[in-house]
């Protein structure tokens, strides 16, 4: 025998799915975002139908104009040299960027910064400043001041890396165990000693991983800075795009994708090796 009659609760208990203020806030936020999206589509004159049509059209263009890629172009010595130079730029930018970002990250870490009033805002602001500005904008700015060439590109990459690694480093620093730091401070260590003996041992593995990751991302950026005058293989990309030599563009793109994929595989392998080692 089953219970088919519905029981009702005693009069005082009620429940409603809509709860003020939580539900009101949630609905208003969602409504606001939807309105913003709708207005954006209207304001920017976007034809939604074209979004759907974009991919088939892209595929057609790739199939007709970009294939077959002109691989002969990319094995020319000048191009190969530019690829090597791109790699070198990424190494320099990565190295110096990571190096400079370490003291900045130290300043920007709330828990171990030297002075909360001065160093902390300075460190935070520097890192945010470097991070907020896209690497291509940095490239253009440096090119204006220093002229075309790899110096501008490398400096742009350096600043990009400062921002990228700086944020990751400072997040990592803020999550350390303060125990050893406290112990060293109470033993009378200088800030530098505390950093070297209390902080670095804790974060060494994570930092190496972040450094490798930063280089990986810097390499991707390095392939493109030449487009804006920063030297490296990006310059060839710009020239072939402007002259509508699409098969050559395809070849360059394939090289870029291939190298970035290799760098990604290499860097993730290296990072997992390091994690296992220490």
């Amino acid at each position, binding site marked *: 025998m089953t219970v088919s009659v519905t029981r009702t609760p005693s009069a005082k208990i009620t429940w409603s799915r809509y709860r003020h203020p939580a539900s009101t806030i949630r609905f208003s936020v969602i409504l606001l975002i939807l309105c913003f999206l709708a207005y*954006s589509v209207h304001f920017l004159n976007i034809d939604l139908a*074209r979004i759907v049509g974009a991919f088939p059209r892209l595929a057609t263009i790739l199939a007709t104009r970009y294939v077959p890629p002109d691989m002969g172009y990319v094995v020319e010595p000048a191009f190969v040299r530019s690829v090597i130079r791109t790699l070198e730029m990424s190494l*320099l930018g990565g190295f110096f960027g990571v190096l400079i970002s370490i003291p900045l990250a130290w300043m920007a870490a709330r828990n171990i910064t030297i002075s909360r009033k001065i160093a902390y805002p300075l460190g935070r602001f520097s890192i*945010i400043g470097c991070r907020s*500005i896209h690497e291509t904008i940095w490239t253009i700015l440096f090119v204006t001041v220093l002229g075309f060439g790899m110096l501008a590109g490398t400096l742009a990459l350096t600043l990009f890396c400062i921002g990228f690694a700086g944020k990751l480093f400072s997040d990592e620093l803020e999550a350390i165990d303060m125990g050893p730091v406290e112990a060293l401070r109470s033993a009378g260590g200088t800030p530098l000693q505390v950093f070297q003996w209390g902080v670095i041992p804790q974060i060494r593995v994570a930092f190496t991983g972040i450094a490798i990751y930063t280089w990986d991302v810097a390499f991707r950026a390095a392939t493109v800075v030449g487009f804006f005058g920063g030297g490296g293989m990006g310059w060839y990309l710009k020239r072939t795009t402007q002259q509508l030599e699409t098969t050559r563009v395809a070849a360059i793109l394939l090289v870029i994708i291939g190298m970035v994929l290799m760098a*990604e595989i290499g860097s993730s392998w290296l990072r997992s090796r390091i994690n296992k080692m220490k």
Partner: protein
Amino acid sequence: MTSAPTVSEDSGFAAWKEDARKRRTKNWILLGATILVLLWCIHDTIMFDTDWERMGVLGVGTAIGRFFDIDWSLLPRLVVPAIETLMIATLGTILGCLFSLPVAWLGAANVTPSKLIAYPIGRFLMVLSRSIHEIIWALLFVGAVGLGALPGILAVAMRSVGFISKITAEAIENIDSKPVEAIRAVGGNQFQVMYYGIVPQILPVIIGTIIFEWDINIRRSAVMGLVGAGGLGLLFFRQMAMFNYGGVTLVVLTVLLLVALGEVVSHFARKAVI
């Protein structure tokens, strides 16, 4: 005089000293190699390429100085481009999120339709999306849809797919099977099992990731002016073309401000969702 404590040669102090020495040697070699590589890189790139005549402190100083002469008259004309950049970022993120769902479904080991074919395809798409720079995506889309805001939005969307789908796939792979079992036991169908058992577990993670990516996309949207997408990127290029360096500085500062604001919003929004 007391004699030194006897310790076996294989352990203890002697071994520690030996280890330390080996480590030090290794570190010196590593340092030396790094310095050599760096010097070579510098030689090959910067030394080779730079226009040293322009490098005089005076030349560089003047060039930088021009940027500090801020053109305040540009101020009122910053508002609309700033909003445009936000629009591109938001639309791009939402679009990217839509594209990410099927990719995440393919790339999650426990729900993928085929472990041999669909799963590697899903993973490959994730890596591909992250590997192609947004500028390159933008160039490709300009060829397909012409100049304007659309290629910029599509480029931002395609670039975001990689990260969002990766996190989503990981969240799907880490779900707790117990609520899923309960909904099946109650007599729920496929949709109910997914909607009541799986979605509540992964939704907060996904939304947090979308907000995080939206913040990063503000930065990317700012350079979509290259493809005529409007926003602060376009304003930047125009000011550069007019050699109005004071205006350029102001635009860059606005971008900085916008990204910082985005970071604050993202921080609080993510807290609210979790």
